């Protein structure tokens, strides 16, 4: 009897709990990506929670990177006061209105320590009051449809057997699972995650590192002074970040081993894939052999085979991947293919393919821009999270994408301001861009910031604004700038000539004008180097050494001519007397005179008086 009562009680409590544990939005993970989403949800006053399995925010950084040093730059000074501009060179801060939450207040190091990031993330969560439920490890995420209302809800279990529910699920669990390929002899390898980081353990050892990423080089650099030599293999050629503009490629801060390789100091780097190799135990040491996949036999047919020496340690440093073990198999979560196989398969709206209302934020949302932009890193996904949040606001709350309406004669100044400060499209170059919708026969512009470019065909669906004719402002590098056989320091690597701006190699503003928004078909038939489909008019502002696009003749004037061509209007400014003369001789006046002079805001010419030196 007693036990039965107890059982009923337990069930009751379970019911109450189940009823209580509902949020409109659940964010899984309180790392940088989750916290960034949390801040936007908090600011918008949404019913949400972040579920974090550990006891602290951003717990990944309790252990990683193993050698403590972050490789995101912490540029504390730029000589500028513009806070938006400064975010272009602050790769660690999350977005917020709180100026104390800038990373430069947390570290003086250009490459900060991971503990400093932990401090920062903890403060970010607390100061902004982001609702995080720690010690909550979710699993068995599934979806349920209410038969009567036909509404769907996500359910998941925590480690205590509670069921948690939400309407919209945002998974920001990052890339937490080490990549560990299986091959003949892989059981003899160690992994970056738990290999010793004490150089003493490598004294006089011959080490093979499998992997070519920053973690592999980070390890190599920390031990190469103790070892006999370090060999590194990776399946792709070494891609240097400063050559590819991709911050996930090998950063100069980690590449010291390239030096010792090229100076023939025993350390070395070669190309191979684990698919082609096996490890054979030879006494205490390990021998690497090539295998022919089909025949399954050794291919070491040359007696001068590069890696014929024996190794004491073989370490896997192949990075991390998305852990989809938290999902019930009924959701059928797919991984990306090809190079993006570390990431879940999502669309440009960050929603999982085939699972409505399930989104990815943070590092795991890098799939769509992998090796293209910075969406896998704090300084990138803080913006994609904002874009995602804006899309959610429209889709679920009916709040359209924020926009500002301006006069066409204010457009030139507005653009010049944006290209000289905007950080979102600077970091997420080629992925996020500003959209200027042309309204009222070209007299007004509605300006939207940092819209996902690949969703341009679905603009009204994602923003809640319906537009036909738009100009899209994108920052992009020159196509095909780097690659095998190309010298990124070649003497003609940059141009300064405005009419040659389309050959700019460095990040520069590019404008796409569409009389009609591109169609889905046009979007999907872009070629490899195209950021957007072929527009009706295109403009490049020539790359600038200072990334300061303020030169009257070289930057501003050609842009004005472009806008004039697009709007088919004369956009010049006139002094009041010239406006008067034109107004008295014509039925219409140039747009500036119409929008400013005739409203009483004419300009009278005055002479400059310069500061005495």
């Amino acid at each position, binding site marked *: 009897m007693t036990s039965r009562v107890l059982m009923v009680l337990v069930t009751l409590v379970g019911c109450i709990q189940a009823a209580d544990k509902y949020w409109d939005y659940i964010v899984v993970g309180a790392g940088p990506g989750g916290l960034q989403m949390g801040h936007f949800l908090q600011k918008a006053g949404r019913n949400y929670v972040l579920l974090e399995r550990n006891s602290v925010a951003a717990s990944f950084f309790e252990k990683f990177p193993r050698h403590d040093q972050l490789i995101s730059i912490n540029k504390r000074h730029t000589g500028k006061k513009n806070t938006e501009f400064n975010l272009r060179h602050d790769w660690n801060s999350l977005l917020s209105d709180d100026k104390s939450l800038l990373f430069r207040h947390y570290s003086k190091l250009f490459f900060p320590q991971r503990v400093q990031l932990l401090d920062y993330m903890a403060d970010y969560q607390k100061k902004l009051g982001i609702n995080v439920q720690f010690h909550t490890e979710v699993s068995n995420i599934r979806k349920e449809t209410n038969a009567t209302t036909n509404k769907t809800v996500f359910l998941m279990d925590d480690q205590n057997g509670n069921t948690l529910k939400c309407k919209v699920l945002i998974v920001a669990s990052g890339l937490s699972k080490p990549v560990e390929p299986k091959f003949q002899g892989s059981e003899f390898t160690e992994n970056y995650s738990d290999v010793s980081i004490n150089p003493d353990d490598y004294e006089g050892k011959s080490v093979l590192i499998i992997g070519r990423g920053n973690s592999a080089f980070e390890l190599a650099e920390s031990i190469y002074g103790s070892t006999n030599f370090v060999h590194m293999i990776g399946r*792709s050629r070494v891609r240097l970040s400063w050559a590819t503009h991709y911050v996930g490629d090998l950063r100069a801060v980690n590449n010291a081993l390239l030096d010792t390789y090229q100076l023939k100091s025993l350390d070395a780097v070669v*190309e191979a894939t684990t698919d*082609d190799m096996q490890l054979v135990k030879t006494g205490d040491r390990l021998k690497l052999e090539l295998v022919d996949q089909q025949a399954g036999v050794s291919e070491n047919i040359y007696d001068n085979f590069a890696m014929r020496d024996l190794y004491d340690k073989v370490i896997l440093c192949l990075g991390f991947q998305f852990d989809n073990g938290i999902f019930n198999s009924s959701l059928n979560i797919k991984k990306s293919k090809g190079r993006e196989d570390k990431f879940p398969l999502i669309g440009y709206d960050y929603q999982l393919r085939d699972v409505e209302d399930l989104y990815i934020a943070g590092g795991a949302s890098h799939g769509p821009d992998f090796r293209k932009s910075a969406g896998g890193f704090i300084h990138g996904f803080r913006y994609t999270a904002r874009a995602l949040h804006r899309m959610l606001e429209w889709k679920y709350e009916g709040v359209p994408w924020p926009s500002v309406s301006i006069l066409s004669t204010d457009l030139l100044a507005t653009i010049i301001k944006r290209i000289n400060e905007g950080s979102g499209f600077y970091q997420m170059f080629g992925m996020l861009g500003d959209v200027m919708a042309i309204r009222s026969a070209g007299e007004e512009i509605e300006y939207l910031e940092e819209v996902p470019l690949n969703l341009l065909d679905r603009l009204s669906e994602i923003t809640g604004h319906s537009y036909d004719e738009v100009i899209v402002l994108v920052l992009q590098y020159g196509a095909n700038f780097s690659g095998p056989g190309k010298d990124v320091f070649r003497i003609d690597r940059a141009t300064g000539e405005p009419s040659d701006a389309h050959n700019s190699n460095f990040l520069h503003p590019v404008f796409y004008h569409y009389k009609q928004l591109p169609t889905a078909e046009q979007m999907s038939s872009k070629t490899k180097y195209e950021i957007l489909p072929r527009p009706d008019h295109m403009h490049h502002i020539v790359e600038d050494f200072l990334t300061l696009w303020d030169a009257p003749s070289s930057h501003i004037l050609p842009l004005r*001519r472009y806008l004039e061509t697009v709007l088919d209007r004369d956009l010049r400014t006139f002094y009041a007397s010239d406006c008067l003369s034109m107004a008295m001789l014509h039925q219409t006046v140039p747009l500036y005179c119409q929008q400013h002079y005739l409203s009483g805001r004419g300009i009278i010419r005055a002479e400059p008086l310069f*500061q005495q030196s």
Partner: protein
Amino acid sequence: MMELAYAFKDKFKFALTTEVESIKDLPGYKPDENVAFWVLHCKEGKDDKKPCSATKYRDSIDLLSLARFLHVIDVEPMLVLPGSDHTFYEQKDMHVAAIIADKDNVDEIKLEIQAFLSKYRGYVGFLIVDKTKFDVANLGFKQDIETSMVGLKLRGETTWQLMPEFEMPEAFLDSKLQATVLPHREQVTSDMTDTENDPVQEDEDPLQEEDDEVAKTVRVIHGRSLDHTHVQRLTEETFTAQTQSTESLVVMFYLVFDVRSKASLLSFLEASRLLAADSLFPLATVECHDERDLCASQNITSYPTIRVFRKGKKYFNYNGVRGAKEIYSFVKLLLADAPVKLNTFEEAKLFLDGKIPKGFDNVTDVSVLGLFKENSDAERKAFRSAAKKLRGQFLLGEATGDAAEAIAKTIPNKLQLPKVVVHKRNDEFRPIQVCPPFTESGMVAQCARDGALVMFPELTASSFPKMYEESIPFLILFTHGRDNNIYRTVGALSADVNVPNVNYCWMDLDAKDGLAMKILINYYDNQIPSTPSLNLVDYQKQRTPALFTPALSTLFKQCVWSVTEELPMGEWKPLLEGYDFLKLMDEGKKAEDMDTSVTNEYGVGFDSDGNYLEKKTDEMSPDLEAAEKEIHDELLRLSRFYPKRGGGSHVDKTDRVHPEHTEL
């Protein structure tokens, strides 16, 4: 030229020639010129054997400049002082050359000037000054100026350029005129709608030639520091404290990259200097690139925005003319008491005359005076509240009781109090407007605004927009100054309530900028009408009013008049197309024929787009298989897994030649 010939048919004979032979002996003939224009003074030439003296036209060949020239070509080219008006040539907007003589050499100099005079007719007027009889100080010379000195005062300038001795006055004049005529010519030809006359340097890209007049003039300040002595430069850190601690602060939010901001900033800084002279320092600036967050919090989306803060709170935006004088006047009015308390009849009287408060007579021509009985509280409250709204626009004063009664008696129609009186010192046709006793402040403000409109204003760049806003036609009198009957007639009509509702205004044909003449000629299809002229123009094509009221019919008999019905639309299209980057890129692509055959940059197991090639499955086509094998082999060959073989793609496994080192 035909229009000119028509307009001046009574004064000149016109001839046109394409025969170089017939003109090559004329002074100033240049064989490389396409067009040239001379005036031959044959009526004056008494000697039949000699050719007529000739004057070559030096300005640009356009109607306005030519007309101006023909107007003055027949003025007496040389005057002797004393005996003439020494300002004669300046009034005619000509250059003036003064030659200092004494009683001994006057005639001699006259003869010498006569010799080359014709060359400069229509441009330079010669004053021969007998300094023994005429006080040279009247001309602005020092008393000790030597005889035979030549002074040249260029059109529009106030100072004399001196040549020491009367040796080569012609060369002196030529070189000085060259310096003025040439820039002048450029200025005249740069028509706002037409750049084809603009001289374009051959190797310069016309797309990079600035054709925005404002941008051109502010270019000089690019990258330089302007004198901000009298304005506070506010930052996010100082903004709140500064606006709160100041009664009224006028803040210009601007953008350092923006042309309009720069041009407006110059006016703003100039205004700050004018205000500083009155010991006023209420102007401040915020630069929106540096102070991004501050401007964002103020929702600034248009540059510049001039915003008034009172005790830290946003009051309103200044939407007036961005001119130094205009901003100065606005700020002065903004800072004045609103309303000014006037305690006596005398004070109220002085207030209406613009003498109280001191120093406002050059700021505004309008005084708005509330006259109240001691007990008219509701009206006074409405007036005071309206005064707050009108701050910055008018000077407002208030008088009560006896003082108010006394003033009311001086106003025509002997007012019953309470009343609001608008006194316009610049309106000779209706200087006083009286508003009924409103108890609602909005009505008071509106009445004051309407009442302050000048009945018959001069049409200028500043006055036009307000009239234009009315959306009614303009009746414009083009006249030489206002000292004439027709001006007074139209002015009087404008104040008549029975005439059609149009904007009555006038333009001065003698104004230095020449705008009135330019417009007038244009209204008469590029012919020069006799003046004064009255024109009805409907800029917004609303409706043409019934004009032929008796009053106007009489008026029209007195002058040339016309209805300008169909103005050209104005095609305000871009002057030049921007760079066609799509075309340039297409051409570039063709030329380059982008080499896509480069080795796979992504490595083993990837296709050329970096897509991972899945392991072989049964479905894999032989083609794909071959492709994968090829990439695989290629990578192995290129990678330093094996030593690289020289020559041929086939890997010869018996060859042991060691290759040279290659890149990674």
